C-alpha cells in the first residue's frame, strides 16, 4: 500500500489519481470524526469537504515533515473549531443530535436486531455527552487512529494532557454507558452480529 506521504507527493507532481486515492482512503474517517465532533451531519459534510479542498490548495507547498494524517486531522479539527465559534452565536439544536436520538430510544428492543440498533444511538449519545476537549481526543485516537503524540500535535497540548483527557473520556463514557444500560454484554452481542 502506497503511503499517504508518497501519494501526496505524487499529487504535488500533478497526479490527480493520487489525490483520488487519498480521498478514498481518508474521506470517510475524516467525515466520521467531524460528524461526532460537531454532532451535525450538514456541518460535518461541509467541514469534510472544506478539509479536502484545503488539501488541494495546500498541496503545492506541502512538505513531508509530519505524517500526512496528523496534518489532515489538524486541518479538519481547526476547521471544526473555527466553525464551532461561529456557531456559538446562533445556538440551534441539530435535528439529528445523537443525544436526542439516544434519549428518545430508552426502551429496550424486543429482539437482538432491535437491541443492536438501539445500542448505537446510546454510544453516540455517550460520545456527544463528552466535553469537547475530551471528545476530540477520544475521536482522534479511536476513529482517526492517531497516536497520543500526534494528537498532541493536532490539538496543540502536551502529550500528558492528551492522555489525561483520554482517561477522563474513557471513564466518562463508561459511566454514561452504564447509566444508559449498556454494559459489556450488550456491546458483545451487538458486535457479534
Amino acid at each position, binding site marked *: 500500500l502506497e503511503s499517504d506521504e508518497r501519494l501526496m507527493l505524487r499529487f*504535488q507532481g500533478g497526479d490527480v489519481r493520487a489525490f483520488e486515492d487519498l480521498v478514498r482512503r481518508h474521506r470517510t474517517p475524516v467525515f466520521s470524526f467531524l460528524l461526532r465532533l460537531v454532532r451535525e451531519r450538514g456541518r460535518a459534510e461541509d467541514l469534510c469537504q472544506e478539509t479536502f479542498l484545503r488539501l488541494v490548495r495546500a498541496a503545492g507547498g506541502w512538505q513531508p515533515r509530519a505524517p500526512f494524517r496528523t496534518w489532515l486531522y489538524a486541518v479538519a479539527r481547526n476547521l471544526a473549531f473555527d466553525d464551532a465559534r461561529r456557531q456559538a452565536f446562533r445556538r440551534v439544536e441539530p435535528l439529528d443530535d445523537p443525544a436526542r436520538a439516544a434519549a428518545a430510544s430508552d426502551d429496550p428492543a424486543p429482539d437482538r436486531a432491535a437491541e443492536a440498533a438501539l*445500542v448505537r444511538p446510546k*454510544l453516540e449519545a455517550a460520545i456527544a455527552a463528552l466535553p469537547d476537549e475530551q471528545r476530540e481526543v477520544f475521536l482522534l485516537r479511536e476513529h482517526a487512529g492517531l497516536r497520543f503524540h500526534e494528537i498532541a500535535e493536532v490539538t496543540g497540548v502536551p502529550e500528558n494532557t492528551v492522555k489525561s483527557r483520554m482517561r477522563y473520556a474513557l471513564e466518562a463514557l463508561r459511566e454514561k454507558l452504564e447509566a444508559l444500560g449498556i454494559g459489556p454484554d450488550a*456491546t458483545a452481542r451487538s*458486535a457479534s452480529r
Partner: protein
Amino acid sequence: MSHEEMRDRLLDLAYGELSPREAREVEDHAASCEGCAAELARIRGTRRLMAALPVEPAPPQGERILVAAAREAARRRPPRRLVPRWAWTAAVAAASLAAVAAVSWRIVAMRPGGIGREDPQALMGDSPYAPPAPAGAPRDAPPAKKEELAAAPRPAPESGAAPLAERGAPARDRVTDGGPRRAAPARRFAEAPPPEAAPSPDAAPARAPQPEPPAYAAAPEPPQDAAAAAPSPPRGGKEGRGEGEAPTAPSAPSPPPRAAPSRAPSAPSSAAARAQATAPPDPVSRYDELRRAGLLRGEIRTFPGCDGEPWRKLERDPDGRIVSYAREGLSGDRRVRVEAIYDLAGAPARVTVKDAATSEPLMGTKPWVPHAAEADGPPRCARGAN
C-alpha cells in the same frame, strides 16, 4: 519502574503504544497489582464497548467535486521540481568546485615539465602554454644559423623538402592554425595526408595568415614533424622526406614506450639496425655510436631576439627516438649550455651543464638541477636564465 509509572502506562498498553518489552513489564505488573489490573480492565472494556460504533460513511456526492477541484489545481500548479532545491544547490556547488579544480589543474599543468619529458614539441619550446612572443623578437629565423648548429652530418634534403622555416612553428605562431595544438606528434603522423593528396581547401585559409614563417630551423634531414605539418597546404605537397623515404609510409610501431613519434624504416634503416644491434646498452655510448655512424637526425630551433635563450636542439635516432637534447641560454650573466642524453625509454641518462664559452662543466652549481631545468617550457627570453 514504580507503581505510579506503571499505572501511567496502562493507557499506552491498552492502545498498543508500548514496545514489546515495556508492554510485557506493564502486563506483569498489572497481573500482580489489583488496582492496575482493574483499571486496565475498565479501559479495555470501554474500548470494546465503543468499538461497536461504526464509522459514518461520507456522502458520495462530494467526491466528484473534490476530484474536479484537484484536477483544476494540478493543471494550474507549476510542475514540481524533479530535483529538490537542496540537490540543485549542491549540484551548483559541486560544479563550482569542479571548475576551480579544473582551473587549478590547468595552472599546474602550465608549469613546464622537467628535462625528462619526451615531447619533442615541448622540448623545442613549442609548449601549448607558451606565452606570446617576446616584444620585438623577429619571427623569421636566419637560415644560416641552422647550418651552423646542425648536429648530424646528413645529406642535404631533396629539393622537394619544405623550407626549414616552414617545418614547425613556435607555439605562438601555431595558434593561428586553428588546429589541435596539443595533438600528440604520433597522432598527427597518423592523420597526415600523403603528399599526393590535394591540400585541403579548408586548411588553406588557416595557414594563409602566416606571412612570417617562424624561426624553426632543422638539420638537413627533415624532422618527423614534417608529417605533422603536412595538412598545411603550403607544406603538405613539399614535405618530402630526405633520402627517398616514402612520405606515405605509415608510422612503424615505435619500440619505446613513450610517445615519441616513430617513422618507417628509411634507407639507412639497415645501417641503423646494425648500429642498434651493436650499440652497447649504455645510452651515452649508444649516442656516440649513432653519431659516429652518421645516423642522427637533428632539429634545431632558434629564438631570434631572445637573448635569454637563443636556441634548442634535438637529435633523433633513425627510429625517431630522441637521443639528445641541448639548449643554450643565459644563467645570470653567464651563457650556459644544457645537454642531455636519453636512454631508449626516453629518460635522461646524462645531463650536463657547461659554460657555453669555455665548455667548463657547471653541474652542481646554481641553478642547475636537471629535473628542474624546465626543458619543455617556452623560451625564457625575459628572464635571461636557462
